[in-house]
């Protein structure tokens, strides 16, 4: 590698503010924690971890260019003349940087197979992008150099190409002096050897020798001619030079610098369909809250929802299990349900549900959509075996946690947002596009996650008939953008609240208008021809069973449902009245008959709760108790001649009766006599974790950061300048313990010490002192002026012995 004239640090110091802002926005990890100055920013930008992140964020176009640059300039084996494809490597002196620009370019174009002017412009734009994100640095002559860590990150085989021959076997004398020789050797290869080479051409560049004799012979020819290099007893490698020659000078089998097109088909009624789905989801959530509010399912030991409860919920909501799992997970992501944290934990609706019914539908939807986009949970994993787990993942369980899904959701949203409104993508084309965007992500990650995301988006109303809806677009705008060199991360300027508002407003416009009436029919069904409004919706849910859902809801009044309403405190008259008021049509006679019929039987048997009873065979004693004024607080009530009941605790009852001259004893449940103890109960204190505060690396933040870096850089320069002019060595910052021992040594050896002392203004003053006593946290010394002075040790920032 030619000796770099400058470094990445120099490059970064030379960038303009806006270029720096772009850099930090594209690689937010550089900003956390804020670096002290531009030099440390540059240092951080070349750490392996940060480069790894940056490389992983590259799309295939950028990655291919970067690989070409690495292959091109990354090692001593330089490539031949431009415009001569198939030119093999030559041991040549490193080219001077003066002609690096043009030669850089030409070799690069060959590697990328970009002969035309247009394609070259594309390559140059991509190179420019890579420079912007700090994976390349520029020399004085606009010659580009790959940051040192990049080849490490890309690994030993770049684009399936092996290591250069002198890296594999440094001792080997190259047999092929030039390209022609190499090509001639390859052409001269016998057919089996040729086939073996071709097998390895596009990687992997490592091969295991076949055990048969024939294979060994074939390989021997190649080894003898240095087309393969042995790396272990039965392993051979294809050297980079040979690989490139076989690839006719091109680096990739297919160079895809530009994103593949996503084929689309136009669809109509997108927003209306999305509104319909959203409305349906809201209904499902209402029902989920109602079902779980009444009978919350147990949380299983590992924290999820049991398969049986999931199935039960699915049946109650009249959904298939996949969709039910989605509804449940959405409710969880939007914090509508939670583990109640009791001794026997159950999944119950949270208090948010109580405000739910009075919230406008769009505002109910927004947190669902945002929760979905932000959640790291993947509902489609429910019911599947995940990872090493032996059993299927439970809904709400830990196995459904899969952070990659969030990235996929966002990418899908952004890809959809990039399409024209009303255009639905072809899923396969979309998959191709996503694979292009993140070539380093294992393809298996997308396998069914993409389908799941598209399906969920449809259920949610983010898409309608496959195309992104207007609310979906608003949602996409509210999310942080993808970090890629070209599409820069631009977060919405507004607060998170603002984002939710925008999303809600976008959805409100497309939700079906709520209705405030039902149509009651003689077959005892009531049809709500649209989404019902708050109180009527909850009444209908209580008073009738849902038979069919969708744009409208069909309710059926049954004896059981009427009884349920009566149990909840409705009277028959109120019940009929409410239905009559809500019905657009006259009530059929059988309906009224049904209600009165159920009401007639309702409440014939009475059940009550009492915490204590008093029984005595002597009825007169009970009479006395009932009559006693002092016992009134006990609220004794007679159930039968020999039985009284009270709402008071049995122990209180016993005590109070004893105080008033009776002689009761307490019975246990089995009728035996028990002796009560005073109760001692404590409620456990509850702690709540503070919600995590998120401060995104956005434009404002970055601008401030870069300004700070610039200032720090300036002051660092200044400091460097000052330090160079003044006397004495640099004083390192030392620990007080080190300082103390150093001072003691100096006292003992009568040595001079340079110390830094922080003054009252916060600055650090430098003194050369000769200490003679260290005591009680202070040091007494003679300073430069020959005056006796004392310093507090805790004020001393550092010390170093005077160099003679």
């Amino acid at each position: 590698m030619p000796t770099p004239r400058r470094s990445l640090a120099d490059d970064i110091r030379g960038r303009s503010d806006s270029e720096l802002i772009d850099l930090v926005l594209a690689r937010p990890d550089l900003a956390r924690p804020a670096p002290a100055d531009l030099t440390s920013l540059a240092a951080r930008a070349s750490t392996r971890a940060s480069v790894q992140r940056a490389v992983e964020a590259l799309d295939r176009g950028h990655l291919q260019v970067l690989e070409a640059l690495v292959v091109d300039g990354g090692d001593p084996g330089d490539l031949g003349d431009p415009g001569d494809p198939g030119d093999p490597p030559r041991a040549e002196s490193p080219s001077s940087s003066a002609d690096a620009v043009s030669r850089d370019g030409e070799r690069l174009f060959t590697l990328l197979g970009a002969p035309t002017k247009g394609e070259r412009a594309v390559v140059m734009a991509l190179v420019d992008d890579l420079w912007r994100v700090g994976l390349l640095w520029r020399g004085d002559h606009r010659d580009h150099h790959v940051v040192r860590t990049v080849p490490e990150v890309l690994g030993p085989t770049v684009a399936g190409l092996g290591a250069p021959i002198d890296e594999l076997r440094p001792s080997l004398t190259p047999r092929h002096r030039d390209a022609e020789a190499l090509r001639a050797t390859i052409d001269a290869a016998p057919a089996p050897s040729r086939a073996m080479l071709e097998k390895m051409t596009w990687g992997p560049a490592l091969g295991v020798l076949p055990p048969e004799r024939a294979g060994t012979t074939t390989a021997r020819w190649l080894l003898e001619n240095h087309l393969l290099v042995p790396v272990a007893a039965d392993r051979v490698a294809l050297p980079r030079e040979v690989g490139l020659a076989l690839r006719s000078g091109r680096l990739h089998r297919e160079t895809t610098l530009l994103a593949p097109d996503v084929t689309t088909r136009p669809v109509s009624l997108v927003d209306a369909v999305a509104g319909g789905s959203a409305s349906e989801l809201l209904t499902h959530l209402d029902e989920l809250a109602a079902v779980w509010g009444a009978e919350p399912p147990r949380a299983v030991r590992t924290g999820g929802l049991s398969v049986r409860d999931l199935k039960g919920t699915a049946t109650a909501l009249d959904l298939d299990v996949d969709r039910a799992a989605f509804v449940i997970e959405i409710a969880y992501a939007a914090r509508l349900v939670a583990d109640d944290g009791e001794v026997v934990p159950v999944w119950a609706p949270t208090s948010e549900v109580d405000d739910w019914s009075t919230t406008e539908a769009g505002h109910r939807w927004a947190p669902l959509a945002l929760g979905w986009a932000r959640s790291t949970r993947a509902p489609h994993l429910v019911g599947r075996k995940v990872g090493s787990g032996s059993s299927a993942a439970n809904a709400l369980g830990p196995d459904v946690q899969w952070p990659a899904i969030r990235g996929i959701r966002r990418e899908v949203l952004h890809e959809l947002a990039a399409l024209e409104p009303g255009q639905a993508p072809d899923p396969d084309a979309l998959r191709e596009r996503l694979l292009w965007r993140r070539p380093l992500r294992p393809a298996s990650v997308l396998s069914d996650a993409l389908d799941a995301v598209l399906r969920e988006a449809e259920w949610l109303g983010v898409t309608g008939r496959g195309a992104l809806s207007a609310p979906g677009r608003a949602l996409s705008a509210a999310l942080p953008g993808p970090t890629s060199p070209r599409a820069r991360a631009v977060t919405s300027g507004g607060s998170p609240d603002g984002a939710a508002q925008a999303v809600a407003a976008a959805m409100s416009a497309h939700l079906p208008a709520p209705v405030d009436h039902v149509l009651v029919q003689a077959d005892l069904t009531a049809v709500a021809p649209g989404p019902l409004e708050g109180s009527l919706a909850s009444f209908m849910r209580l008073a009738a069973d849902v038979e069919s859902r969708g744009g409208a809801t069909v309710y059926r009044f049954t004896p059981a449902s009427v009884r349920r309403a009566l149990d909840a405190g409705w009277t028959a008259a109120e019940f009929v009245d409410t239905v009559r008021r809500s019905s657009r049509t006259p009530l059929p006679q059988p309906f009224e008959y049904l209600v009165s019929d159920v009401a007639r039987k309702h409440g014939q048997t009475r059940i009550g709760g009492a915490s204590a009873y008093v029984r005595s065979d002597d009825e007169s004693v009970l009479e006395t108790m009932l009559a006693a004024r002092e016992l009134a607080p006990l609220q004794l009530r007679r159930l039968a001649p020999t039985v009284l009941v009270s709402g008071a605790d049995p122990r209180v009852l016993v005590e109070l009766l004893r105080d008033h001259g009776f002689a009761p004893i307490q019975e246990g449940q089995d009728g035996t006599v028990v002796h009560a103890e005073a109760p001692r109960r404590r409620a456990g204190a509850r702690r709540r974790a503070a919600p995590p505060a998120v401060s995104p690396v956005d434009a404002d933040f970055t601008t401030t950061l870069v300004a700070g870096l610039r200032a720090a850089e300036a002051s660092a320069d200044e400091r460097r300048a000052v330090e160079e002019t003044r006397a004495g060595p640099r004083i390192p910052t030392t620990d007080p313990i080190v300082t103390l021992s150093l001072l003691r040594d100096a006292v003992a050896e009568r040595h001079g010490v340079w110390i830094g002392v922080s003054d009252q203004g916060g600055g650090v003053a430098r003194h050369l002192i000769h200490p003679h006593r260290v005591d009680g946290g202070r040091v007494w010394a003679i300073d430069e002026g020959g005056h006796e002075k004392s310093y507090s040790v805790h004020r001393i920032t550092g010390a170093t012995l005077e160099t003679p």
Partner: protein
Amino acid sequence: MTDGPLIVQSDKTLLLEVDHPDAEAARRAIAPFAELERAPEHIHTYRITPLGLWNARAAGHDAEGVVDALITYSRYAVPNALLVDVADTMARYGRLTLEKEGFADSVDGTGGTQLVLRTTDRPVLEEVLRHKKIKPLTGERIDDLAVVVHPSERGSLKQELLKVGWPAEDLAGYVDGEAHPIELNLADWHLRPYQQQAVDGFWHGGSGVVVLPCGAGKTLVGAGAMAAAKATTLILVTNTVSARQWRDELLRRTSLTDDEIGEYSGARKEIRPVTIATYQVLTTRRKGVYTHLGLLDAKDWGLIVYDEVHLLPAPIFRMTADLQARRRLGLTATLVREDGHEADVFSLIGPKRFDAPWKDIEAQGYIAPADCVEVRVSLPGGQRMTYATAEPEDRYRLASCSDAKLPVVQQLVERHRGEPTLVIGQYLDQLHELAELLEADVITGETPVKERQRLYDAFRTGEVSTLVVSKVANFSIDLPEASVAIQVSGTFGSRQEEAQRLGRVLRPKGDGRTAHFYTIVSRDTVDADFAAHRQRFLAEQGYSYRIVDADDL
């Protein structure tokens, strides 16, 4: 978002708002592919089923039209998944066709025709041929896209293909059968418009089912079809009484003479150009063998008519599988079968060719309007106790045979004195008790056919105004002047029975009187629960009903 009359639900039901100005247009648009499930007063419910969609395909509708109808009339956006599903389902019909093809025999050079299962889509054929039950039904492969089918397996193959979701379109045509001149005798009557439509629909479709409510003149549709076929005809009916009525009707309405119509029943075994056979005789088995199967081959039938196709016993389906080369007409009031054999009706008889909602026909004045009333009686104290402690299997009988019903029946009969009244029940003891009380005749399964005929005739002429009948009267008796039916007990909650019984009073009355349909049930018992089930059916058919207490009568 339009303001259409239709709401498409996620469970594939369609809600049609009847009072909407576009409701009629929407109904016409969806009727070809959606089954009317419920038709109460304000909102009718249709259901989209695969069978319905295939029926539509068979009638020449395509998926685009169906999707278009849904989108045009829907008030809210139609879920995309449903549209996709509709298109997919419809695309399955017609991928496989059964055709008759000529071939040249390679051995002796003579030609002939053979039945071939052909496809336009090779994977489909491969898929179905790999089915265990379908493979044995087919012969040798002709090429990649076709396979030979033995003519005798035509029915079974269609049945199995439907089961695996790839219904075959039967284009193999029909044999003409032995020609026989049959004309409608149109001197003093003519086919009503909807009957003519039904006949045309059937004839153009080749084979299939015509759905018409009781009393809407299904026999005449049968006669019309026979006149169109002009060929020897086999008519399968539920019982002997019904057979006689068919015979009478045919004599009156067509050019057929007494000598041309034969009866093939337990009593008589005549085979004539038009033969009327009962289900029962066909399904009679002796030593495990159906002894009367020969009838099906006795003549070269040109048309086979199945009366009350929803009651067709399973063995007849099996026999019908062999009759696929003949035109088949199914007549029924409802496609709903309590045994769930709708798919067999589709594959073996044919798709639905005509359907009209009851209410529409009633509105046109062809069937009588009905007033349905449920009368609730309270069990007397002693019976309540007996009921409460009875075994569950005895409860229904106890409740429905309560003495408390007797005076109510008497009161109702009294109220409608002079009008032809049927008292219908399930339990013979109860029926005899009632007959004694009302001084009326009883018809049960034990009543000889002659006696039955005599009583029916007397009832028809008005000589007798009240009859007590058991469930033998459920099917196919034609009592034109019955205008009051009182139901005292029934077969648990059978919807089909309810339809039949209601049918008793729906035949048009000479003077346009309202028909009355009373059901008497014991309050707070299983009787009331079953009654609720049956009434739901009535309400769903669009009949409003009232509930009154016996004391308020």
